[in-house]
């Protein structure tokens, strides 16, 4: 049986797995970085999951969407930090990237609405509306299709930190 660690506030302790930091300029210089980073990190952290191939596929799929969101930031300076940590069946992605204040407000609002009762309906109907997927839909998909929980945390400077908990081990086939 796995032991469960809790910090002093009673919250479960997520053990660090892997972190990749890049200059945002470097990251946005090539679209394929989203694919590379998501696949590489998924390979690294999936090795000791009960079904590594399936876990890799699901994790890479979810993480790539987040990286594509970060890729479209309108802020040109600063760092992209991707950190993955684990607690039991849940993998936590902490994605920190520079963004302008309006974007930050957008993410805060979008994340607050992800958990709402209408979120699922909005997500299911999203295909019929937009020509291209909005960033809000990407976040909704993580919540609806991957049972992810999301939140926005404080980050230094003109940056935002998206924290996404992915319980992929428990996701039904």
């Amino acid at each position: 049986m796995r032991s469960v660690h809790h910090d002093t506030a009673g919250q479960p302790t997520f053990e660090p797995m892997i972190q990749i930091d890049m200059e945002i300029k470097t990251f946005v210089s090539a679209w394929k970085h989203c694919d590379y980073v998501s696949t590489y990190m998924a390979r690294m952290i999936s090795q000791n999951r009960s079904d590594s191939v399936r876990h890799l596929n699901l994790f890479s799929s979810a993480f790539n969407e987040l990286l594509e969101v970060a890729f479209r930031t309108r802020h040109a300076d600063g760092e992209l930090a991707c950190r993955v940590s684990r607690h039991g069946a849940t993998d936590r992605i902490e994605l920190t990237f520079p963004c302008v204040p309006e974007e930050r407000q957008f993410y805060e609002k979008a994340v607050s609405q992800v958990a709402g009762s209408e979120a699922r309906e909005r997500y299911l109907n999203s295909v019929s509306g937009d020509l291209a997927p909005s960033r809000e839909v990407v976040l909704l998909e993580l919540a609806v299709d991957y049972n992810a929980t999301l939140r926005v945390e404080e980050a230094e400077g003109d940056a935002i930190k998206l924290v996404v908990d992915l319980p992929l081990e428990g996701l039904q086939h």
Partner: protein
Amino acid sequence: MSPYNLLPRFKAQYDANSQEFSISGVVRPQAIDELGPSLALLREAIGRVRGVLYVNVRRLAQMNNAAFYAFSRIIIDACRARPDLKFVVVTSSVVGWTSRKFGRLTRLEPNITVEEYDSEFYPGQGFLEEGGFVPILRTQTKMTWRHEREILPRHGMRPGIVMADICCGIGDFAVLVQKEFQPSRIVALDHSISSLNYARQVMREFDIRGIEYTYGDASEMLLDEAQFDLVTCRHSLQIFNRPELILKELYRICKPGGRIYITNEKNSHCLGEPRAESIRWTYNEVAKLFAHFEMDVELGPKSRRYLIEAGLEDIRIETFMVTNLDGDPQDFADVIVAWSDVYAGEMAAKRGDGPEFVARFRQGFQDHIFAALHPKGYAGWPIWVASGRRPQ
């Protein structure tokens, strides 16, 4: 070369014969323009078909939202422009996100349905995967292992190799291989969730390391190509209606110079003394029964042909006979009891066999058990082993 260059990219194609548009690989474009030719092909396919268009995404490993929306838009628009046309999106349960993602489309247009092609797959699996059969599968492997542990080194098994056991079932073969030969890595794949759960439970209980159990479809695997020194697939080609599809995949994941190892039966050659005639009749009928369900339990001696046709070289083939003299005769008898229960029970009933046939069918199994347990008896179950090398 960067390892990323090895990542599969995507391929879209249209098969007019089956009215099927398929897209496979990794589809993560930055802009829809990058998908131009594939989107045009889908539009062209829609323009040419009548009745139904199958959209096959079962080998679609990844698709970002930009691509999903682009393809979906065309399908949705087509539904509205041509209400006569139906779309069937064929997903795979192995690629966890596809059914959910494409399932959204069914909410929007009644003419779109999503089918998991492998949800009722592998004709033999339903008969064999339920929990009651597990002890018998373990006994079978125990009995065949006595032979295979001697045979395997002649077919490419050695310490330190990277191997895959495809259609691993409850995983006990992988465990035995791990203990005996210490490969550096074993990937064990099966399409039965209950079997994999059992395998993982055993792995945890016995603190076994080095085996990665993975849920997958042997005929459409997500495993990267050319990564295994040895690929084993035991007793499975014979219960799949298109064994050449599995062999194609075994070939793909095998390294050039690596070997593919298969075992299969020829059930009509099961034998026993005394009461040989009754036993022979029943096992001939077993072969016919399996054929009814599109399984070929006579495949064993055909292995050479299958391996050659798959493109393998240096084919090695041999047979061994599991008998009542291997260890405890009761083990042999227990296996036959289980066969009788399934073959003369559920399978015969499903075929619609009458009570007279079933009684005679069962008698052959009874006589095989009699031969196995008789102090002077002899009972045998022959297995064909074959392997071939993927050319360099």
